């Protein structure tokens, strides 16, 4: 199955299509059970949001997170030597005067925590958000960078 990185308090993806959340979370297990059966739902694992990739680029790690429709001001990103924490909110209101035929794109609060395999220099981290994709570059500490070892002949 999928490998998840969750914080101590799991993110509460608030899917509003069923309106059950307004009952104070009492029906959350039911809500979770019903989620796959919501009309037109394409994702069984709606709790895993946003989807992320973490890649090792040699000198740095690169995190890419899919954040369609998320505004930069609704995003909070913190990094320390071995952890990335991404929190935020996507708002998604029904446009005024419209009626709904399908509503699969949730409005939700999210939080994901990822551990970084080797120590990084958090002060050198750089992040940008373009086309709904967050890219975060985290330079490794010098000791963690790959080193070419010259092979001598005798």
């Amino acid at each position: 199955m999928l490998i998840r990185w969750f914080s101590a308090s799991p993110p509460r993806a608030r899917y509003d299509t069923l309106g059950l959340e307004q009952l104070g979370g009492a029906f959350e297990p039911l809500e979770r059970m019903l989620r796959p059966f919501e009309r037109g739902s394409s994702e069984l694992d709606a709790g895993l949001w946003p989807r992320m990739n973490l890649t090792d680029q040699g000198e740095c790690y690169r995190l890419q997170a899919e954040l369609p429709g998320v505004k930069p001001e609704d995003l909070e990103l913190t990094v320390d030597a071995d952890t990335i924490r991404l929190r935020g909110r996507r708002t998604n209101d029904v446009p005024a005067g419209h009626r709904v035929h399908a509503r699969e794109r949730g409005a939700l609060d999210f939080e994901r925590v990822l551990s970084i395999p080797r120590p990084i220099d958090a002060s050198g981290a750089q992040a940008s958000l373009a086309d709904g994709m967050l890219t975060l570059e985290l330079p490794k500490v010098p000791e963690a960078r790959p080193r070419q070892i010259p092979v001598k002949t005798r």
Partner: protein
Amino acid sequence: METQLARTNGDHTIAARAADVVQSVRITPPIDVYENPDEFLLLADMPGVQAADLDVKLDPPLLHVRGRQLVGPVPVEYQRAIRVDERIDPDAIEATLDSGVLRVVMKKRASFKPKRIEIKRS
């Protein structure tokens, strides 16, 4: 695929390994569809897709949207089709892309828009 690789490698940087193996990933993007008296509105999540890599095509009775994301470690292909009917004016479909969300506005033909009927005095 990624998960299997993760299990065998015990490696954190799963995607980097997966990129060596997986050619591309196909994803059905989640959508919203709305309607008002004048138009239908389709929203689709396509993070990382640029306008040049986007294709919106009307092939009645289907509207196809397709986008290719080439910025991640593995190329992603987003594909979805929705059924539309004769109320839509094929010459008045507009698509825009903002923050990874595709927005397609489909205007209704004039003959299908609600019309107010004047009441004449006799």
